[in-house]
C-alpha cells in the first residue's frame, strides 16, 4: 500500500507539474499527430469552448468532434475558472482521471487473480498492486497522452469503470450504463460490448440478465445520452461531426493508423467501397475472438477460455483498425496486459521483439514526420512506413497473446505437468 501511494504520488506529480510549468505543452502536444487525432484533440475542445463563449454553434464547423455533453461539462471549467488557474484545474482533472484509472486497474488485477485461482484450483500469482499502477502511470504512451490532454483519457476511464462495475462490484446494470457513456464518448468502443457481455456471462451465468438486460440497458443509456445531446444543442449536427466522421473516415489527417494514406491516395470512385470494407474489417474479428476465448460452461476439460483476454484482444484489434489511431489506444491495451502475469503472459515469446519494434517505431515516427512536414527532405512515404510498422506491431502483439493463450489453454486442459510445461512444443493443424 505504501508503494502504491508512492508510485501514485510520483505519477501524479509528473502529470501535474509538467503542464503547469509549461502551460502551452498540452496545446503543442495536441497537434502532434502521434498523440492526438482530430477526434480527441484538446486544442479543438478548447476551440469549442471559445465558440460557446462567443455564441457560435460548435457543431457548425469542421473543428470540433467532441460529443456535446463532454464539451458542456468541460466548458464549466472554462467558464467559471479564470485564466491562470484554469489550466491548473484542467491539469488536475486529467491527473485525477489517470490516477483513478490506475486504481481501477489494480482492482481488476486483484479480481482476475482471484477469479483464476478459483477457476484453476491452483493459486495464480499476478503482479503487485504497485507494479500494476506503475505499468499504467509510468507507461510513456499514457504519460504523453495525458500531457496532451487527449479526451481519449475519459473514454478509457469509463471503459475501466465498466469493467470494475462488472467484475469487482458485480453490478451489470451500472456497468452497462458506463459502457453507454464510453460509446457515447468514443463510438468505436461499441464493438467491445460483445466481449464485455461474454465476460459478464462468464461470471454471472444468467443468460436472460446478460443477453437481454445488458444490451437493452446499454442501448438505453447510449440513446439517452444522444437525446440529451440533441436537446442541449437543438440539432442533430453533432451526430455528423462526432460519429459519422469516425464511421466514414472523413477527416484525413496523417496519423499512425492504416487508413489515412489509402484514402488520400484513393481515386474518388473507390472510396465508398473501401469505407465499407474497412468497417467490416474493423469488426470482423470481434466475434471470432470472443467465441474462441469464451469460457464455455460444462465443456469440461476440453477448453478453459479467458473472456477477459478476449476484451483485451478486441481492444487491441480496435486500436489496430482505428481510423484515428493514437498512442493512447495501444498504451491502454499494453497497460492491461500485465494483468495476465499469472496465466498467459509467461507463454508470450516475442515480448522483446515487440518491445524493440515499438521503440524503433516510436523513435522514428516523429523524425520521419518532421522530415516530411518541416524539412521537406523526406516525403509522406516515410511517415506512411511508420504507420505500417505500427500496424505490424499490433499484429505481432495479438498473435503472441493468442498463441500464449492457446499454449496456456493446452497445458491446462491436458494437465501437462509444470516441469514439462516449459519445454512443451506446440503446433496447429
Amino acid at each position: 500500500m505504501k508503494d502504491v501511494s508512492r508510485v501514485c504520488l510520483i505519477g501524479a506529480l509528473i502529470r501535474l507539474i509538467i503542464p503547469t510549468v509549461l502551460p502551452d505543452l498540452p496545446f503543442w502536444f495536441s497537434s502532434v499527430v502521434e498523440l492526438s487525432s482530430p477526434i480527441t484533440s484538446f486544442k479543438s475542445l478548447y476551440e469549442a469552448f471559445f465558440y460557446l463563449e462567443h455564441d457560435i454553434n460548435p457543431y457548425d464547423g469542421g473543428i470540433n468532434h467532441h460529443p456535446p455533453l463532454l464539451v458542456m461539462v468541460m466548458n464549466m471549467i472554462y467558464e467559471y475558472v479564470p485564466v491562470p488557474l484554469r489550466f491548473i484545474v484542467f491539469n488536475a482533472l486529467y491527473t485525477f482521471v489517470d490516477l483513478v484509472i490506475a486504481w481501477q486497474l489494480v482492482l481488476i488485477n486483484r479480481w482476475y487473480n482471484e477469479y483464476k485461482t478459483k477457476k484453476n484450483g491452483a493459486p495464480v500469482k499476478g503482479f503487485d498492486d504497485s507494479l500494476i499502477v506503475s505499468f499504467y502511470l509510468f507507461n510513456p504512451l499514457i504519460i504523453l497522452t495525458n500531457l496532451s490532454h487527449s479526451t481519449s483519457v475519459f473514454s478509457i476511464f469509463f471503459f475501466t469503470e465498466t469493467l470494475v462495475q462488472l467484475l469487482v462490484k458485480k453490478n451489470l446494470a451500472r456497468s452497462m450504463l458506463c459502457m453507454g457513456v464510453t460509446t457515447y464518448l468514443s463510438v468505436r468502443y461499441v464493438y467491445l460490448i460483445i466481449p464485455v457481455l461474454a465476460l459478464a456471462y462468464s461470471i454471472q451465468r444468467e443468460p436472460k440478465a446478460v443477453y437481454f438486460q445488458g444490451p437493452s440497458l446499454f442501448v438505453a443509456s447510449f440513446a439517452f445520452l444522444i437525446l440529451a445531446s440533441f436537446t442541449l444543442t437543438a440539432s442533430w449536427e453533432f451526430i455528423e461531426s462526432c460519429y459519422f466522421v469516425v464511421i466514414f473516415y472523413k477527416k484525413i489527417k496523417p496519423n499512425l493508423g492504416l487508413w489515412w494514406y489509402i484514402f488520400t491516395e484513393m481515386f474518388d470512385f473507390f472510396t465508398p467501397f473501401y469505407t465499407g470494407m474497412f468497417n467490416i474489417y474493423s469488426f470482423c474479428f470481434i466475434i471470432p475472438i470472443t467465441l474462441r476465448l469464451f469460457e464455455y460452461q460444462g465443456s469440461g476439460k476440453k477448453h478453459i477460455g479467458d473472456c477477459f483476454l478476449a476484451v483485451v484482444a478486441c481492444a487491441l484489434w480496435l486500436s489496430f483498425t482505428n481510423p484515428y489511431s493514437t498512442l493512447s489506444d495501444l498504451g491502454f491495451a499494453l497497460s492491461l496486459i500485465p494483468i495476465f502475469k499469472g496465466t498467459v503472459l509467461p507463454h508470450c515469446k516475442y515480448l522483446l521483439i515487440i518491445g524493440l519494434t515499438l521503440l524503433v517505431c516510436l523513435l522514428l515516427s516523429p523524425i520521419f514526420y518532421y522530415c516530411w512536414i518541416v524539412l521537406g527532405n523526406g516525403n509522406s512515404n516515410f511517415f506512411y512506413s511508420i504507420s505500417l510498422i505500427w500496424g505490424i506491431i499490433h499484429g505481432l502483439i495479438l498473435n503472441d497473446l493468442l498463441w500464449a493463450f492457446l499454449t496456456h489453454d493446452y497445458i491446462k486442459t491436458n494437465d501437462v505437468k509444470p516441469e514439462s510445461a516449459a519445454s512443451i512444443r506446440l503446433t496447429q493443424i
Partner: protein
Amino acid sequence: MLYTALLLWISCLQAVLGQPSEAYNEVLKFRPLPRNSLLASFEFNIVSSPVQLKYHGEDSRQTWEGHEHYELFPRVLGPIVEASNTRELHLRFSQGWYDTESSGRLPFNGSKSGGTGVELWAVIEAPDLDAAKADWVKLTNALSGLFCASFNFINDPITTSPRLQFEGKKTGYLANLGNSLFLLRAALPNEPICTENLTPMLRLLPTRGKRGISSLLDGHKIFDSLWHSMSIDLVTQCDDSFSNCALRMDQTIISAIDVIRSLRRIEEGGIPKPTPGEKLRCDESRYHDIWECFPLGDPEDLSYDIESIFGRAIHGAAFEDSSVSTEVSFEADPSVWQIEAISNRSGQEKRTDLTNAGQLNHISYKIADQKDYNFNFTTANSTITSPLPPPPLHAYRSLTGYSQDKGGIRVSFTNLNSNNVKFIYFESLPWFMRVYLSTFKIELQNTTGTYSVKDENEFIKKSYFKPAIDRKRPSQLELFLTVPPESSLIINYDFDKSLLLYAEYPPDANHGFDVEPAAISVIGDDNEIFYEMHTTSLLLTLPTPDFSMPYNVIILTCTVMSLAFGSIFNLLTKKVITEEELEKLSAEGKLAKIMNSVKRKLGKR
C-alpha cells in the same frame, strides 16, 4: 454615320415609347505618379431605361418577359442579370502591386479596385438562401462564359455571405413580397488577368472600343503595367415607389503604367537589354570612369505622349452627339508639368497647351469632334507630382510558421493619422485552413513600445465568425476594428493545414494554394465607408502525399491487413497439438506414404 443613325433611331424610339433615354458618359483621368509611373483611369457609366423588375423563379422560365430594349446598355449582360434575379453585381479583376506608401491612396478611394485575382459579389433576390445559391450558380456560369474567366469554379466551398462588411452599404432596391436580398461573394485569387478578359469588357461598351477613350484600350499595353484593375459595378436604381427600376453600370479600367518601361519597349523592343555604357547615368558625386559607375535612378526630365504609351491615339469623341460627353482630365502639378493636346485630322496637327489654361492641378478637356487626339506630357522634374493624400490605413497580412501542418496568420494595421481609424476587416479562408480562433491575440504597437492587449473589446467593436466545414464552406471572419492614432494593431491567430485527397491537388501541388486577399473598408465619422483596400493574397503550402503511390499504398496497406487477418484467423480456427503428435499424424498422411515409397525405391538403387 452609323452612330448618328443609331442616335436618331434612339430618339425616335424614345418619342414613340415616351420613356426616358438611356445615358452614357465616359471619363479618362491621367495622373503622373512618383517613380515615373502614370496612372490612367478609364471610367464609363451607362444607365439603362427603367423597367419593372420581376422575380424570375424556377417556374417562370417559360414566360420570359425580360428587358427587351437595350440601346446603350449592353444587351449581353441585361438578360443574365435579370434571369438570375441579380439586383447588384460587382466584379473586380486586379493584378499587380499598387504602392500606397509612395503613391498615396488608391484611385476612387479604392472603391473600384479589387484584391489580386478576381472578385465577384452580387445581391440576389430570392425567397431563401438555397434559391439564392441556385441563382448564384446560374449567374457565375453565365459570367464565366461572358468574361472568359473561371467564374464557373465558384462553388459552395468558396462562397461567403458577408455580414458586417456590407451592412453599411445601401441597395437602391426593395425586394418583392416574400423575397429577401442575399449578398453572396467569392474570389479567385489565382486567376490570371489577361487580354481575354479585356475584350469582353470592351464589348459591353456602346462604342465597342472603337471610338472615344476606349480606343486607347489595348490589352498588350494595359496589362504591361505595375498594377491594373478592371471593375464592373451594376446596381439597380429605382424611383421612389420602387416600381420602375433602371440598371446602372459603372465600368472602370485603371492601370498604373511604368513610363520608362513603356518607352524602352518602343525603342528596344520587348526583350530587355543591358544599358550601353554611354547611356549609363552615373552618380557624379562619386568616382566614376569607364569601368566603375554608381548608377543613378530613372531620369527625371521626361517627355512622353500617350500614343507612345498606349500605342494608339484617342479616336475622337464617343458619339457625334454633344449629349454624350467624352472627357479627358489631368491631375498634375502645373509648375513642373506641361501638358499639350495634339489633335490630328488627316495629317493636320494642332497643338494646344493645356497647362496655361488654368494654374490649377486639375485640368479637364472635353473632346467633341471626330479628330484623333494625343496628349503630350513634358516635365523637368518627374518626382514632383500632384500628391494623392496618404491612405487612412496601411495593412499587411502574412503567414507565420514554417511547417506544412500548421501555421498562423499575422495582420498588422498601421494608422499614421492623428485620429482613430475605424474599419471592417473581412477575411475568408479556404476550408483546408483549420482556424483556431481561441488562439486569437491582439498586440498594440506605438511609439512607447509593444503591448499585448488583454481586453479585446477595447479595439474590436463587433465581430462575426463562421467556421469552415470541410469541402462545404470557407471560414469567414469579420471584425469591426479601431486603431488608435499613430499606432499599429497586430492580430495573430493559428491554423492547422489539412491534408487533401489525391484529386484535390492541382497539377503543381508544391507551388501552394492562393488564399484570397482580405478586404478592408474604412469607415468615416458619418458611418459611411469612405475608403476600401485589400491586403495581398497569400501563398499557402499544404502537406502533399507522394503522387506516384496510389497502387503501392493499396498493395502495402492490404498486405499488412491480410498478414494480421491471416495469422489471427489461423490461430483462432486451427486445433492445437504438440509437435510429437504432428509428426505422428504426418507420418500417417498420404503425402508421407508416397515420400516413403519414393525414398525406398531410391534406396534400393
